[in-house]
């Protein structure tokens, strides 16, 4: 090692790790052995390693100082007795955060969860299951949101419900009882728009050629058999709509002639 030259830039000493490794051994900490002559020689020449070794030796000294402390036998007996009693009593390990030993200011700064748990230890179970609880809350929020969305979209109005009911109960005229022409005038009022669907024959209904021939004079929109309750609901719906329209027109200061040509009385008079 005598041929070892001093390094111009000591911050990049390649032997630094080796030196520190040698100095960090147990025996050097306990003072049982001195660094080898090679290490000593290198330390004499390398300033960076010397500084690093001084820091390491200071750490070693501090560590040796701490390690020199030995507990008394009385403390061991006390510890054994206390641990035995705790085991027999079925004591559970406590949290390390002891309220009595932590000053008030420190308690405030130890984080919200710690301070709350120190003050309310009975809710610790809640804190430990916080992830499950958070997942449940998110799930409930999703369900609630979807329900809210469903309500917000709105329920189908009464006309749509009635239409669906009529769609589910399509009835055709019996062959021996063709619809009279008196029934016909009522249907044009409801044939426009979606009410056309009423007359769509169901797939399950068998086609009867004789009956179809007898119904040829009746339009496709008039083949639906009038069910009393459906008719009532249609009538009430129409009344409601006409009343609403009338009120709207009155509100907008438009006059409505009760004997308009479109009224049923006028229409029957014209037919006669």
């Amino acid at each position: 090692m005598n041929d070892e030259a001093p390094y111009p830039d000591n911050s990049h000493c390649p032997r630094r790790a080796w030196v520190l490794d040698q100095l960090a051994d147990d025996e050097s900490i306990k003072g049982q052995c001195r660094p080898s002559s090679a290490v000593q020689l290198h330390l004499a020449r390398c300033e960076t390693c010397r500084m690093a070794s001084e820091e390491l030796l200071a750490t070693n000294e501090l560590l040796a100082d701490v390690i020199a402390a030995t507990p008394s036998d009385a403390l061991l007996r006390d510890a054994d007795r206390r641990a035995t009693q705790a085991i027999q009593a079925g004591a559970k390990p406590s949290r390390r955060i002891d309220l009595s030993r932590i000053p008030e200011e420190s308690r405030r700064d130890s984080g919200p969860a710690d301070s709350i748990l120190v003050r309310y230890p009975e809710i610790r179970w809640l804190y430990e299951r916080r992830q499950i609880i958070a997942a449940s809350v998110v799930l409930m929020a999703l369900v609630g949101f979807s329900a809210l969305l469903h309500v917000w979209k709105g329920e189908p109005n009464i006309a749509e419900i009635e239409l669906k009911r009529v769609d589910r109960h399509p009835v055709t005229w019996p062959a021996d009882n063709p619809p009279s022409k008196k029934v016909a005038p009522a249907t044009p009022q409801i044939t426009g728009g979606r009410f056309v669907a009423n007359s769509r024959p169901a797939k399950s209904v068998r086609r009867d050629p004789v009956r179809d021939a007898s119904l040829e004079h009746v339009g496709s929109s008039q083949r639906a058999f009038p069910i009393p309750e459906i008719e009532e609901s249609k009538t009430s719906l129409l009344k409601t709509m006409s009343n609403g329209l009338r009120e709207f027109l009155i509100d907008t200061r438009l006059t409505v002639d009760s004997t308009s040509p479109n009224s049923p009385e006028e229409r029957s008079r014209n037919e006669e």
Partner: protein
Amino acid sequence: MTMANVSMPADEPVRRNASAVTAHRWLYALMEAEGPAVLRMLWRILGNEADVLDAYQDCFCKLAGMDKKPKIRQARAYLFRTAANIAIEFIRVRKRQKKHAGAILDVHADRNGESLMPQEALERERAIASLHEAIDQLPAHLRNVLLVRDFSGKSYKEVAEILGIDKATARVYRRTAIVKLANLLQEGSAS
């Protein structure tokens, strides 16, 4: 029931009732075999009688709370690791305390029973506190080797058995831990 509720008569001898001894026979055997080493480690880390007693009791309570009896090697490893973790937790609490309390003399006052000058004692305790903080910052695998080897005084063979690593690895880990510790202390003093 927490351990705070367990009373500790001062001079009462250790009495173990029959059922508890049967249920935790292995634990008492472990306490007799490894208790001094664990207590030594806790004392060297914590240096405070009350904290050491609490930590020691906590270690064995945790072992007693295990569902089934572990193998003796597992129990030893668990005991030392638990003791190290508890000690580190104490150090963290102390760090919080130190932030506001300022006075750390009373924490380590009874470490060696020495009567130092207040300034010397303060310097020494500051150095020890910074050493503890540096130990806390070490990676767990290095810290465990350092604590079991130096603070509890176990041989490398025992360290390797307890931590489940190779003997040579334990030696390398310890050296690395010391070098890192020195770096951390230097950074701490610089900051």
